[in-house]
Structure formats: C-alpha cells, structure tokens
C-alpha cells in the first residue's frame, strides 16, 4: 500500500480531507445557485443559505407516514454513510492518501448503487404513487447511465493501466500536455453521465415539485426533518464528488503529492478554482438546455455511451499498437 512515511499522519489527513469534503458540499451547491440566479437576472440567496437550510431541517421534529417501516427510517443513514465513504475515496486536495486504496473507481460506482438502491426502496415504502414513480424512473435512468460510465472508466483505466483513483491522477499529472482523443471523448461522456446521475437539467430538475417532472424529489417526498437533511446533504455531496472527479482526473495540476503544508494549501486553492469554474460551466449548460421528457433520456444516455465507446475504440486503434 502506498502509505506516507507516517501512517498515523496519513490517516489523520485522510479523515480531515473527508470532513472538508462533506463540509464544503453545501457551499458548492450555494455557489451554483448563486450563479444561476445571477445568470437568470434574479436576486440570489446568500452563499451559505444551504447550511442554514440544513440546520433548520435538523432541528425540526420528524413526521412519518403511518405505515412507514424501519427501512424508511434507516435508509437516510445508509445513503449518507455510502456517500461519506465515497467522499473519502475521491482525492480532493491530496493524492496518495490511504483511503484511496480502500476502493477503486468501480467500487465507487458500487457505493452510488448502494445509496440509490436504498433510496428507491424508501420511495416504495409508503405506498403512494409518487414514490413508486420516482423509484421506477430513477432505476431506469441509472441502469442506462451505468454502461456509459463504465466504458469511460475503462478507457481511463486502459490509459493509466489502473482503476485506483490516486494512481490515475498521478499518471495524468506526470504525463504532461498530451492531446489524447480518447480522454476528450471520455471527458464528454463522464460529464453527460454526471449530469444524469446528479439529477440536473436536462435529465431531472432539482428545483421542481411537479409530479410529471420529478425523479429524485418524488422518491424523497415523504421525508422530513433530520432524514430529509441527511438526504439533501447526500445529494449535494454527490454533485461535489462528480465535479471533483472530473476536475482532478482530467486537469490534475495543483493536487498535492506530498503532505507538506505548502503543497496542501496549494491543493486547496487549486481545487477551489477548478470547482468554481466547473460550476459556472454547469450553470451555463443548465440555463441553455431545457428539461427533456423522460423517454428522451435514453437517447441522451445512448449518446453518452457512444462517446465513451468512441473513446475506447480510438484508444485501441489510434493510441496503442505498433
């Protein structure tokens, strides 16, 4: 295992990075909301509004439906736990932390699948049509996004000959400025999959409560108070995980490879800048595009799969071989 000279310091740093990740996720959500409002000529809420919302929710009393089972009450904790694990695995500020070896990219996809499974079950627990609809649509979209995501991951793994995230980032960092068509296609495919999985426009509208357009919101309709807070926080962490993955894999410059204070602070600055820029790109995309009807999402994800497939094929045909 690629441990730093001092294992205790490495694990402590990993813990601090995970806590930083979780603490910064609402900030990213607030930043996205703020830019979106500015772009649409609306008055923007404060940057820290998501924190206030979470605190408000944590303080409220839980109201459950009469026939909610123990699964309904346990699901938010399982979901949040899965996302904390995922956050610990993704390198945010420093590469080569020991937690990155607990799970590779495929296990990361498995964590998302675990969270989604329990959330979908919770949607079906109460026995209303909303929950069933949300669960059904969410599982359909997720199953169509999986092949695209995995094909993109494969392309990355074939380029770096590993699925361990730290090693992939290190490989891309040391490769210098190389124009790889396969990486370009993989980036586009991953971006489309990220949009679909984190429930942004054009796949799902994170701000809607109209039954014909809900996917994620429909599943969590019956939740309140601390359960709802955990789930909201978890979806903010999910968005942050996807943006950090895209930022650090394709533009790894700035990430800390040694555990010195200078490298770490430089890493923090670098990731903040990259996240801010990617958030602006996301906002432009969301403002320009309209939400698609559900049965056009397969075409969207099919296009993502085509891009990932082209990435893999161009890697095999153009970039390797004699």
């Amino acid at each position, binding site marked *: 295992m690629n441990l730093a000279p001092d294992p205790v310091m490495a694990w402590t740093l990993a813990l601090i990075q995970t806590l930083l990740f979780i603490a910064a996720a609402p900030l990213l959500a607030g930043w996205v909301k703020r830019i979106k409002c500015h772009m649409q000529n609306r008055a923007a809420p404060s940057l820290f509004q998501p924190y206030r919302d979470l605190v408000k929710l944590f303080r409220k009393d839980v109201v459950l439906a009469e026939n909610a089972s123990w699964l309904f009450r346990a699901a938010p904790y399982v979901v949040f736990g899965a996302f904390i694990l995922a956050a610990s695995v993704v390198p945010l500020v420093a590469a080569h932390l020991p937690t990155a070896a607990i799970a590779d990219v495929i296990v990361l996809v498995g964590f998302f699948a675990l969270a989604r499974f329990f959330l979908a079950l919770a949607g079906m627990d109460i026995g209303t049509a909303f929950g069933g609809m949300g669960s059904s649509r969410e599982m359909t979209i997720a199953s169509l996004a999986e092949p695209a995501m995995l094909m993109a991951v494969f392309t990355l793994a074939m380029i770096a000959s590993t699925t361990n995230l730290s090693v992939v980032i290190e490989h891309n960092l040391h*490769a*210098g*400025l*190389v*124009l*790889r*068509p*396969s990486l*370009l*296609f993989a980036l586009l495919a991953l971006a489309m999959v990220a949009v679909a999985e984190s429930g942004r426009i054009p796949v799902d509208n994170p701000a809607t409560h109209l039954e014909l357009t809900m996917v994620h919101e429909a599943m969590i309709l019956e939740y309140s108070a601390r359960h709802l807070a955990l789930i909201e926080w978890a979806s903010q962490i999910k968005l942050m995980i996807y943006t950090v993955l895209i930022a650090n894999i394709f533009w790894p410059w700035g990430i800390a490879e040694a555990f010195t204070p200078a490298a770490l602070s430089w890493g923090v600055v670098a990731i903040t800048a990259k996240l801010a820029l990617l958030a602006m790109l996301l906002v432009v995309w969301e403002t320009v595009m309209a939400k698609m009807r559900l049965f056009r999402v397969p*075409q969207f994800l*099919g*296009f993502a*799969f*085509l891009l990932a*497939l*082209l990435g893999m*094929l*161009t890697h*095999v*045909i*153009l*970039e*390797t*071989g*004699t």
Partner: protein
Amino acid sequence: MNLASLSLYHQALLVAAALVLFTSFMMLATARIRPLIFAFAWQGALLAIVTALVALVSDHPHLYISALLTLGLKALLIPWMLHRLSARLNILHEVEPIRNPSMMLVAGALLVIFSYYVATPIVHLSTLVTRNTIAVSMAVILLGMLLMVSRSKAVAQVVGFMSIENGLFFAAVVSTYGMPMIVELGIAFDVLVAMVLFGVFFFQIRASIDSLDVDRMNRLSEKNE
C-alpha cells in the same frame, strides 16, 4: 508506441481523425436533413485540418493544396449546394425517424472493429507516421455505406455517397500521403459534377413519383406503370 513521445502536431492529427469518425456517427444518428448537412460540412472541414497536419508532420507541401481544395469543395461549396437544393425542394426541415437507433449504434461499432481487424496487416507493413489512422479511414467509408443503406430519403443517400468519397480521400491521404495532383483534381471535379446532376435528377424524380423516398422508386418499374 508512446503517445507522449509524438509531437504536438501529430497528437492533434490523431484528435482530428477521431473527430472525423465522430462526425460519421453523428450523421448516422441524426434524423433531420439540416443537421445532417452540417455534420457533413464539419466532416469536410476536419478532413481539411487532417490533411494540413499530415502536410506539416510528413513534410509533403502539395497536401496543403489538397487541404485547401477539400475545405473549399467539401466543407463549403457542396454543403451549400445541398442546403440550397433542399430548401428549393422544401424538404429542409423534414424528419425521417430512425427506426432503431441502438441497432445503428451497434452496427457502427461493429463496423469500426471490423475495419480495424481488416486494416491490421496493412498497419503492420506501413512505415508512415499516419498508419494508425488507416483503420479510421476505412471505418468512415463503411459508415458512409451504412448511412446509404439505412436511409430512404434521397438527400440522405447523397450525403452518404459523399461521405464515402470523404473516407476514400482520407484513406488516400493517410496511407500514401495523397494521390497525384492530377488525380485529385479530377476526382474533385467529378464530385462537383455529380452534385449538380443530383440536383437536376431530384426535381425529375419528384415530378415522376411525387416523393423523394427511394423506397418508392419501385413505382417506376414496368409492372407498376
């Protein structure tokens, strides 16, 4: 072969070649005529860029002229003529629903893998710097043929035909650094004349059978008179 050891222009060449393949798939996937013509125009433009980069990397200056010719003809003139023709025939905004888009995708991917399989012995024998892109050029040809086979609107068939010609030109550039100038000029002129003739024929066909659907051309056979 280590990608990082190649020059930046060579890497840009590979990126452009990959994007040409991408435009081929785009043409397979669009159901409307206007984006189809735009995809074809982009394919021509990318092909011109590839030719220019090959000229730069392999130091064959006559390819610059080929690049300019391709840009002028395939990226500007022919798409403009097709656009004008479609506008005059009032079919510019027609939608032809693709019956089975996932099957098209699968067939396209299989064709790419097949052309890679066919091109492998050639790639082993070749000594040119662009030898890896030979498989891509064959794939463009085969995908153009797939486009012709899968569509029933006449304009889509013409675009498919032109795309095959694009692929042939691409193959010539990357496997032998272009053809003799006189041959290239002749082919380019032939393509232009073919375009003009297509225009004339489309009006005639529409006058005869009142539609531009090639599947309905069997109305012209004797037993249907």
